[in-house]
């Protein structure tokens, strides 16, 4: 389980988990689950396009993730956010289908981006991932306070003089960066599951943003490590374990929160 060829998987998984734990906290707080699904999923088209013109797929992935995320924010200013997200997502996916049909090459590389290849990470890729991950977290730290306020109450944030669209745009870039860090390794499916499941569980259990973020990172790390161990042990896909653990954590947290509310309600009665 700790064989040398698995060390990059453990290290990469840890980077992904920390980034997803922090970014996911804001995704859940803002109700941005659809957005967090659309950006990693649609960005695969960029990788397909990059393969077509002979550039590094990571560049295509990053460009499409950033372009899609910014496009959704800008188009969504005057319309329903979910409608714009859906339309941008299908347009990116359709472009991906076009690129795949042009290249006539075996598309296994591109399909790996959907389901991930956790053992396929090389040490120098790991360095790029770490660097991007640090940038991503630095960006979040830079806008943490306005982002929190704009997430909880956009109206209040605007009244305080925060430019909400600007904050939304920076957060869109954060999601794009997180996508580029994680998708080559864990795939679009798993990235989305990590951004939503453990952070949602953490938010159901905590009351302050600091606690929430800390628990979110802890739960995401636990999910990723357990999934890698189970996946190595059973030879079944890591995506299955991570999504199942995420869903169980969320169900458990919802139940625990409900029991706590009931107990507090009773103790407040005379």
């Amino acid at each position, binding site marked *: 389980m700790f064989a040398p060829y698995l060390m990059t998987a453990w290290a990469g998984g840890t980077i992904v988990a920390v980034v997803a734990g922090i970014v996911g906290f804001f995704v*859940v707080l*803002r*109700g*941005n*689950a*659809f957005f*967090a*699904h659309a950006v990693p999923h649609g960005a695969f088209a960029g990788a397909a396009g990059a393969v077509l013109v002979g550039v590094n797929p990571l560049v295509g992935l990053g460009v499409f993730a950033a372009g899609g995320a910014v496009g959704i924010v800008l*188009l969504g200013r*005057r*319309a*329903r956010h*979910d*409608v714009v*997200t*859906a*339309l941008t*997502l*299908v*347009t990116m*996916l*359709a*472009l991906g*289908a*076009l690129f*795949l*049909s*042009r290249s006539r090459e075996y598309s296994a590389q591109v399909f790996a981006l*959907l*389901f991930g290849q956790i053992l396929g990470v090389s040490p120098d890729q790991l360095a790029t991932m770490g660097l991007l991950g640090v940038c991503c977290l630095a960006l979040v730290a830079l806008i943490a306070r306005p982002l929190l306020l704009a997430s909880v109450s956009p109206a209040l944030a605007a009244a305080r003089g925060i430019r909400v669209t600007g904050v939304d745009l920076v957060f869109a870039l954060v999601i794009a960066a997180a996508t580029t860090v994680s998708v080559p390794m864990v795939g679009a*499916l798993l990235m*989305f*599951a990590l951004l*939503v*499941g453990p952070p*949602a569980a953490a938010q159901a259990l905590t009351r302050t943003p600091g606690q929430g973020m800390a628990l979110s990172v802890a739960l995401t790390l636990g999910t990723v490590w357990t999934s890698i161990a189970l996946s190595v042990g059973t030879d*079944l*896909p890591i*995506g*299955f*374990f*991570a*999504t*199942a653990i*995420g*869903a169980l954590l*969320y169900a458990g947290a*919802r139940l625990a929160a409900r029991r706590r509310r009931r107990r507090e309600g009773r103790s407040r009665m005379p």
Partner: protein
Amino acid sequence: MSAVLSAFFASPTVQTALAVGTVVAVVSSVVGVFTITRGQSFAGHALADLGAVGGSGAFLLGVSQLWGFVLAGVISAVAMEAIGTRRLEGRDVATGIVFGAGMGLTALFLTLDTLIGGSSNAAISVLFGSLFSLDSALVPVIVALGVVTLAIMTAIWRWVALETLDRDLAAARGVPPRTASTLFLVALALAVQLSSLSIGAILSTALLIGPAATALLFTRRLSTAAALAAVIAVVEVWLGCLVAFASFDWFGGSSWPVSFTIVAAVFLGYVGARTVTALRPFGHRMAVG
């Protein structure tokens, strides 16, 4: 041009594609109008992708993949409604959890499928299915499912319309809100399963959301919007098929994928409509779409 047109309508592949495309376009866009006004676009998209769970699971058990699709869609719809909350943000997360868990199961089933030998084509083709590679044996089933979906929508129309506009008012008028929204999600699941099975998940979401969002930019009456959306959807599907067919000649014998041309028509239609309504001096600036 007329030579291309006559070849277009003479091809049996195109005839099947146009027939199925029209049925799917009408059903999706009518359901889509409610999907958008209820803020359930994410659920609509998730249900389209979740059909793959049923497809790969059915292959594992050796039963018909078609019914795997339908069953998985209905079960996911009920699960989303069961854990969903009334707050929009909470519903978003609930959809995401069910969606993530379903995709994880798909990954598991696909792996197990390859272990027992062979692979489930339906689960892969659901992502990039094509209107031009339809199995003609599926056509009667697709039409029947489409009719069932439209029948459910007609039966629950008044309930869902009232419940969409004001949940408390609906409850006061004697509409059971939970039943109404569950029935709607089942209709939504049937509509997107039907389309993702026949034309792929990309097109399924595009036809569910695009034409309905375009129509809602121009009118707020649900019935008018549904009719307008159906017309827009059929025009966009036919246009996409025609462009994909004609592109065969433009690029020396390799045509553009029909999924791409239809989605391009849908997206350009929406962006064009947004531009038109933005330029209009007065009127429905803040339309629901």
